[in-house]
């Protein structure tokens, strides 16, 4: 159908706090978005009517036990796992990424948890760390998140205490590189990779900032693209006039990619 817009369900677990900005960025990119409040009365089947899912940032269940651990066991995540297998898009940002990793949907190569988002190792700040970083897009394979084209280097904020991608599986990172599942890596302004702080803000293995599943329709990313999607959100926005500031910034392409990918699926 010509004017049908893809529908995104913004999943809102108790304790998360990015639902409105997540909804807004989906709408600006040309999709419809509803906020789905996860509580004991929500029927996971409601998700069947959506084309994609956005699990945003915050502290689901107050990070009780560890970040993402409780939400990962919610029946709604089982449903999202099922829907992702059909090719629907799933984006997990920050706490959403932690939940996807705790469910095993990311990296999704085996039916088990293969990664952790462990507490940051940062020589300057213990615990929660909030700053602007650069990430490099180095995935040559087209997926649901780079279809519209992504700048090679993105300026983007991070805000987390448990964002260090790590694994005890020594072969996994090699496999992720081979499969082109590592979508974003922390880098400097010119795209140079340095594993040390402050380029790598949390000590993540291989400077990983974002990982997709093998099929490329699920992304777990620790930085917040929805907080860098308009010029007015960027730290140097003062150099632009009002009209310029209301325009999309480079990170918006990630959401435009999702729309394009879903529109293709809907044809």
């Amino acid at each position, binding site marked *: 159908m010509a004017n049908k817009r893809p529908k995104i369900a913004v999943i809102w677990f108790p304790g998360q706090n990015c639902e409105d900005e997540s909804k807004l960025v989906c709408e600006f990119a040309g999709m419809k978005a509803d906020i789905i409040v996860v509580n004991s009365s929500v029927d996971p089947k409601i998700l069947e009517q959506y084309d994609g899912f956005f699990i945003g940032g915050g502290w689901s*269940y*107050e990070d*009780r*036990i*560890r970040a993402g*651990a*409780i939400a990962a*066991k919610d029946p709604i995540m089982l449903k999202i796992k099922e829907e992702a297998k059909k090719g629907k898009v799933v984006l997990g940002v920050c706490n959403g990424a932690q939940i996807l990793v*705790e469910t095993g949907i990311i990296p999704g190569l085996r039916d088990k*948890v*293969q*990664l*952790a988002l*462990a*507490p940051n*190792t940062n020589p300057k700040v*213990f615990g929660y760390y909030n700053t602007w970083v650069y990430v490099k897009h180095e995935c040559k394979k087209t997926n649901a998140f780079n279809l519209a084209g992504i700048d090679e280097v993105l300026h983007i904020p991070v805000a987390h205490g448990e964002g*260090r991608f*790590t*694994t*005890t*599986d020594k072969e996994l990172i090699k496999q992720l590189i081979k499969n082109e599942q590592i979508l974003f890596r922390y880098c400097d302004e010119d795209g140079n990779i340095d594993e040390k702080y402050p380029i790598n803000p949390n000590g993540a293995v291989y400077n990983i900032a974002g990982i997709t599943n093998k099929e490329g329709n699920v992304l777990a990313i620790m930085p917040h693209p929805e907080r860098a999607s308009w010029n007015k959100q960027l730290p140097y926005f003062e150099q632009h006039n009002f009209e310029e500031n209301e325009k999309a910034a480079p990170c918006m392409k990630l959401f435009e990619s999702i729309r394009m990918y879903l529109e293709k699926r809907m044809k």
Partner: protein
Amino acid sequence: MTSTKPIEMFVRLVVPDNIALTAKHTLHKIGFKIADLRREDYYSFSVDAKDPKNTKDKNTEDLKNLLAKTDILANANKHKVSFDLERDGTKILVTDIDNTGQGLLHTLRERLGFAQIQSASSGTLWTFIGCKEEDAVKMTKELLINEHYQEFKLLQ
């Protein structure tokens, strides 16, 4: 050569523990049976034992009293501090694989003046009531740790 002796410290909430309650409810939801689940903050210290001030029992007790009163490790308004492991249920200690305890040690030695403490580590102690040991291990693996940065051991 200076020798050391270990001190273990257990810090438990005396108000309802929302983390333990949420963990118990989640375990029930995913199909495990358990009567109760408790959680304590666990600290382990190596204390200089050659220093004459620390070799007598009284000095050890004084040190324990001081540790219990540091509001860094426990808040007297909501925590109960113990230096003995209670003998009930199945005890599982969860720790971070790469946490060397250097941050805690630095705080205790440099900020609070506990010069006699040579090393420190911390973790979370879970007590499973009303289930078999093997089930407690299964529950730990399923919910209470992520094996890619944490590990666990049974405390006897």
